[in-house]
């Protein structure tokens, strides 16, 4: 939401530390797309936007600019909100292997299940600053910010430039759509001495009827096919108001390959929509799974406990035993404990357990605390000020986390929407609305790979909608995106604020009938599955999904 990028890694999973990105996809983890990541909610006539700023570049070059309809209130957010939302709503592709004709096991057994994830890449944008009349200048956590009037363009641009706020080339033209009487811009930069790794989500609250992403401004510094991931919280399922909506053709997913081509499939599907503008709903459902996740009774302990500690090591142990999420502590503890940049490079996601009893190895959280403890043990207690440290942690970690937890008590439903956009497609700001008539959307997608043990029968991939495709080897499954001319959309539709979706294009019949594709050596032939598979497929889906969830909870 806003402009201000400095680099993006599109489609490439990337391991980050404090920035809250996640480890590369591995079997058993959920798919996650990075990019612009925003959580929208509505409270008392105001839009509440939690915005995760992703930035790659020098801290001194970081700037971020956001057009707003009213003077905003800005507070710090928490990276943990996005991490836990990813856990709860990220798409998961679960492929169940089963045996078919001629197999001694009697068939129907539940084989190993693979879940593929992908994290699309992140984009961010760099933004500029104040205008002729600065309404407010203040700071929050690692940021300095200014609220500037956007009644006129040039005074605002001049003010930003003269006050040290970086204004990316092209901003002057891009802001035209937002310059009008009564408008404001929020400009953000890092305080001196902060690093780009200190970027913490921000919460912006402003009077407005609807959540909207000022994507036109983002075009200034966006990479091709930049991912935009939005959660919209409310009383019912959220919809893209002025963008189309697509369902992907899951035939093209690389099921055996951890769905690593998910971003590419989505991008191709989006490009089949009108003006290449559409969203996919990755999840829509109750906020119940997020209740008591960010905050529960007893979490964080009491300030007195921390303020009474006598050494950094004792302090770190208290943090760990009181349920702190260590990634949120990295900027503060790195300064406090003199932890050098790169110290967390060794943190890795634990390996999935092939036997299904939870991942093998230390959790990410445990690895972070191990590093904290190593540096805390050698840190002198001279000059240790637990009161000041506790104040900082409460202001920048505890309070933002507790505030974020309220989102899920105040809103019954959450909807996760994703799209990819290239700069030339960023000509209309996406707006979101609600439709109480629409059904929930699961984030778990299933397929069954049937291997026959008799003769030369090809393997069959049976999708959840009963479409079945034959492959000579499983390796061919993930290659179809490049080789098959089939559409990447199962359906293109328009979602309204009432009623059921209006279908624009329905490719199901085309894809189900199949065309015996012989392109490049018989990749697959589509057809609907025989009814006999149904029970096996359904059982496999249920069991595989339960097993996956169980493992993830333990993780």
């Amino acid at each position: 939401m806003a402009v201000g990028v400095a680099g993006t890694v599109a489609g490439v999973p990337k391991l980050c530390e404090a920035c809250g990105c996640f480890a590369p996809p591995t079997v058993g983890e959920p798919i996650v797309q990075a990019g612009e990541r925003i959580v929208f909610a509505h409270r008392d006539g105001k839009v509440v936007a939690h915005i995760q700023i992703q930035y790659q570049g020098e801290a001194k070059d970081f700037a971020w600019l956001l057009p707003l309809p009213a003077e905003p209130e800005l507070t710090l957010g928490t990276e943990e909100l996005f991490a836990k939302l990813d856990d709860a709503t990220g798409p998961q592709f679960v492929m169940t292997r089963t045996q078919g004709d001629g197999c001694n096991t009697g068939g129907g057994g539940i084989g190993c299940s693979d879940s593929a994830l992908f994290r699309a890449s992140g984009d961010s944008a760099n933004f500029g600053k104040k205008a002729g009349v600065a309404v407010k200048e203040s700071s929050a956590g690692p940021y300095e910010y200014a609220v500037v009037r956007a009644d006129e363009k040039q005074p605002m641009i001049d003010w930003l430039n003269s006050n040290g706020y970086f204004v990316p080339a092209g901003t002057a033209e891009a802001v035209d759509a937002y310059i009008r009487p009564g408008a404001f811009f929020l400009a953000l930069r890092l305080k001196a001495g902060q690093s780009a790794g200190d970027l913490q989500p921000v919460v912006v609250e402003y009077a407005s009827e609807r959540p909207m992403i000022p994507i036109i401004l983002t075009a200034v510094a966006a990479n091709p096919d930049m991912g935009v991931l939005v959660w919209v919280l409310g009383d019912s399922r959220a919809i893209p108001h002025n963008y189309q909506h697509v369902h992907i053709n899951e035939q093209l997913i690389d099921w055996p390959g951890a769905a690593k081509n998910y971003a590419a499939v989505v991008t191709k599907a989006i490009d089949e929509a009108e003006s290449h503008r559409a969203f996919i709903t990755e999840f829509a459902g109750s906020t119940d799974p997020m209740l008591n996740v960010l905050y529960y009774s007893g979490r964080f302990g009491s300030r007195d406990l921390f303020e009474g500690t006598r050494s950094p090591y004792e302090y770190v142990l208290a943090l760990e035993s009181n349920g702190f999420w260590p990634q949120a502590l990295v900027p503060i503890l790195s300064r406090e404990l003199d932890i050098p940049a790169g110290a967390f490079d060794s943190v890795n996601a634990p390996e999935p357990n092939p036997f299904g009893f939870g991942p093998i190895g230390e959790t990410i959280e445990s690895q972070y605390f191990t590093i904290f403890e190593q540096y805390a043990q050698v840190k002198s207690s001279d000059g240790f000020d637990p009161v000041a440290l506790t104040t900082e942690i409460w202001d920048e970690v505890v309070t933002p986390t507790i505030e974020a937890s309220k989102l899920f008590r105040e809103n019954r439903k959450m909807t996760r929407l994703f799209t990819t956009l290239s700069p030339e497609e960023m000509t209309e700001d996406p707006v979101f609305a609600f439709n109480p008539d629409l059904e929930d959307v699961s984030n778990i997608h299933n397929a069954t790979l049937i291997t026959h043990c008799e003769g030369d029968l090809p393997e069959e991939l049976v999708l959840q909608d009963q479409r079945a495709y034959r492959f000579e080897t499983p390796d061919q499954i993930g290659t179809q995106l490049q080789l098959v001319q089939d559409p990447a959309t199962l359906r293109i539709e328009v979602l309204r604020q009432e009623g059921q979706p209006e279908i624009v294009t329905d490719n199901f019949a085309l894809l189900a009938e199949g065309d015996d594709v012989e392109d490049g050596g018989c990749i697959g032939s589509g057809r609907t599955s025989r009814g006999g598979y149904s029970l096996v497929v359904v059982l496999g889906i249920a069991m595989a999904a339960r097993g996956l969830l169980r493992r993830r909870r333990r993780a």
Partner: protein
Amino acid sequence: MTRAALTFVVLAGCGGTMDDDDAPPPPAIAVEIGRIGRDGFSAIPEHSELVLEPGAQGGFHVTLVHRIPDLPVGSEVSVERETRREDTGALVARARFTSRVGEDGTLEKNVPVFLCPAPVGIPVADEALAVRSRITVELEGGAAEGGAGEGSVSFVPRCPADFSAFCDQICR
């Protein structure tokens, strides 16, 4: 509906002494939809042309004001408002909010009718739109209805000259 009669219903509801089955139907209240000008509130004549107002985040809206002349100042009301294309009935905008009744009977809070960007495939600029607002009087504690009424108006939104190109782009 007189103010005295409405007050009676409100008091009865608050006291909780009336059996729900015996409760009279909530009184109908008059609802006017208009705009605030130099001379205060004025109702919008049917099929008026209204210039779209630019919002600061790049959209366009019109500001409509609700007036409920029969309610006491300070009454809390709920507003459910729908805006549809008059010709097709297609839903363009929907809003739900609460407000108190101000000194002149107008609501203290009036959420703009968000019109642009227009919904996919439903142009709004230069198209007749019908607004229908249902007002419900909130009683203390929210236990029962203290009255309800509906107001409606139709108008044709026009793009402002200053932003005509951009407005045409996202309102049609």
